[in-house]
């Protein structure tokens, strides 16, 4: 369920108060982690990690029991990738627990999170639960999550990926993937027209103008879906943060969300609207039609996360596939910043009667081989170091390179979900033809003031 992958991004309010990843060094550690998990070099640890998780048969447990997993993205989909992944990690798990039955509660969409909260609040959630970084502060402070610090997987977590799942020095979840948003482009269209990926803001505008002149929409729009509009704004905001610690400064009150930084972002979005870069159907499309415009070559570029290359290639399979490319959204001086984070976290319900079994299931779900099956064709990038995947899409190679080479930070770590909803809403106002007024951002500032108490205090 890709839709969910994006919602994540739209509502990221990550938690990171870990030692070893001080709040004043977010950008550096984020980049470091991106580099390590996206690196092409084979890690000798990969097979070790896998071996450790699939415990040898002599320690096997033959008791019959049922363990439950709830998620929004473990259901069968038409490509059969998820099913193959499930079978792979079930096999790993059953080496240790011969007679285990794994039961899945899968609910697609935003509704899954509504339901999960109700289940946790009434101690009726599944043994193993998947959720998003934005939920972690609330779930840990309420005592819903078991401490996973002793899982051997934790040693494969580094930098931002570790910060994201750590709360008061303990690890409460394992990130399944690492993701960032940027610009994906139609490789053939670029090559046929002699266009190379732009490195600066002005170059980007020139590329957009060129396609517009040819009657091709520069950027596919899909802003009928709220998560797409707030994700798009978020992708723009990173370049306008005046410093890597911008979000901490907002928390401490020295910067404001209605200040010059966010105004700059919305000025850029206004410019995109004024020049018609998103096309006339941007507000009519949901994210399916947005992708279709990109796949049909009616739009040259699309702003989204890691999943695009694998997804459009598989959707275009009957027409010979589709090659894409990726570049970070450029800024003025050619040194953009990416917001890096995970879309899917796996944790253990603190109230489970099967604590060890649940922890072992989390380990099996992150087994290197199983994860490779899940990730390879779907364009998911593993968050654990040492899992090395050779992607077939050129766009994914671009993506890995961008992750490794670009400055990044855990964007949205100190921003409540309601603020991103306000951003998305303001963006749709621009798209509906109203001209941006800096006073609009006061609403973001108010939402921030009201929901600030949901955030973990930075720099502990």
């Amino acid at each position, binding site marked *: 369920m890709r839709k969910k992958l994006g919602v994540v991004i739209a509502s990221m309010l990550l938690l990171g108060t870990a030692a070893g990843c001080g709040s004043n060094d977010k950008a550096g550690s984020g980049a470091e982690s991106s580099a390590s998990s996206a690196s092409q070099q084979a890690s000798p640890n990969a097979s070790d990690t896998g071996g450790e998780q699939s415990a040898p048969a002599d320690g096997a447990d033959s008791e019959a029991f049922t363990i439950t997993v709830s998620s929004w993205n473990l259901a069968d989909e038409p490509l059969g990738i998820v099913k193959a992944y499930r079978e792979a990690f079930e096999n790993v798990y059953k080496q240790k627990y011969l007679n285990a039955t794994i039961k899945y509660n899968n609910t697609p969409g935003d509704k899954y999170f509504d339901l999960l909260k109700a289940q946790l609040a009434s101690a009726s959630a599944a043994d193993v639960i998947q959720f998003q970084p934005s939920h972690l502060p609330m779930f840990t402070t*309420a005592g819903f999550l078991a401490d996973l610090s002793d899982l051997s997987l934790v040693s494969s977590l580094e930098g931002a990926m570790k910060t994201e799942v750590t709360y008061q020095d303990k690890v409460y979840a394992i990130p399944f993937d690492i993701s960032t948003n940027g610009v994906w482009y139609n490789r053939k269209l670029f090559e046929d027209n002699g266009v190379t990926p732009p490195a600066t803001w002005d170059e980007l505008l020139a590329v957009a103008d060129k396609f517009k002149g040819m009657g091709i929409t520069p950027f596919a729009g899909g*802003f009928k879906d709220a998560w797409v509009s707030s994700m798009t704004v978020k992708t723009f905001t990173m370049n306008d943060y005046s410093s890597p610690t911008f979000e901490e400064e907002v928390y401490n009150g020295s910067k404001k969300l209605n200040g010059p930084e966010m105004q700059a972002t919305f000025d850029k979005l206004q410019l995109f609207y004024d020049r018609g870069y998103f096309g006339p159907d941007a*507000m009519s499309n949901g994210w399916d039609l947005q992708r279709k415009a990109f796949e049909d070559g009616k739009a040259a570029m699309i702003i989204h996360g890691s999943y695009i290359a694998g997804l459009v290639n598989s959707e275009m399979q009957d027409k010979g596939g589709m090659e894409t490319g990726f570049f970070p959204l450029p800024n003025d001086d050619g040194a953009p910043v990416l917001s890096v984070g995970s879309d899917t976290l796996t944790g253990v319900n603190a109230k489970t009667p099967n604590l060890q079994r649940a922890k072992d299931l989390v380990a099996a779900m992150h087994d290197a081989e199983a994860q490779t099956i899940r990730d390879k064709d779907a364009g998911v990038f593993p968050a654990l170091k040492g899992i090395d995947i050779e992607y077939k899409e050129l766009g994914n190679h671009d993506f890995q390179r961008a992750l490794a080479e670009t400055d990044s930070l855990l964007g949205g770590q100190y921003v409540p979900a*309601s603020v991103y909803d306000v951003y998305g809403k*303001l963006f749709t106002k621009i798209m509906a033809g109203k001209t941006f007024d800096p006073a609009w951002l006061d609403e973001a500032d108010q939402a921030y003031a009201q929901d600030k108490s949901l955030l973990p205090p930075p720099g502990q």
Partner: protein
Amino acid sequence: MYAGKKNGLVEWLFVAPALIPFLIFVVWPFVSSLYYSMTRWNGFTSPVFIGFDNFGRLFREASFVAALSNTIVFTLAGLLISNVLSLLLALALNRAGRSKAVLRTVFYLPGVVSFVTMAVVWSSIYHYYGPINEILIRLGLESWTREWLGNFDTVMAALIIIMVWSGVGFGVIVFLAGLGSIPADLYEAADLDGAGAFAKFRYVTFPLLMSSVTIVTFLGLTTSLKIFDLPFLMTNGGPGDASTTLAMLIYKQAFSYSNYGYASAGGIVLFVLVGFISLLQIKATRGREVQL
């Protein structure tokens, strides 16, 4: 005819099966939300009592005010259009003869289909490359084309059309039923008095239809004041806050932002609003009803 203690017990036993589930699943959640509305509570940890702060915050917030006014627009427009349109249709159908049954079916049909399934179709109808714009272009009215749901001027009208489409059939049937129950001799008497068609409508039909008006209005009120699915599925309240309703705002605050106490306060305001308007309406229309 029935009296005594024993009979009192029997009567309570008769109402208990309907009353008990109602108390547990309707009254109790509502009463507990009265308490939660005065707390800061995320649904998990213990609620913190904060008095009436949530209510003050509601009326300070621009999005709440926008949601309130959108809800009122939905309600007024919905009531006016569905009452007038369904009455006109019922009057026309009442004389339509053989095609009456078929037409009645056609107008009621949208009401029996789930909105989960129809949202897909309506989105494609209002799409920029959808049939409405295509027809406009063929008529040479290209300047009229727009994104119907992505535009401040048209989004509410577009949603109200869907609301009327799915709700008008109920009104038609109620009015048809009302028309069918008016005795023919009243019209004959009016004919003898030399009344014209309009006079007959004004002095016979309309007064006798007041109880139908009460039903259509009450149900229209309670559904449109609580309207949720339609904007939630079609526009998610956008663009901006242009189609956000109170029920949507409450849902989002409760489930997306975990501001459960604040959402409960919104729920109380909505309850008071619906209750107050319904009482007004019942007073207004009931007073005009004529009993045969």
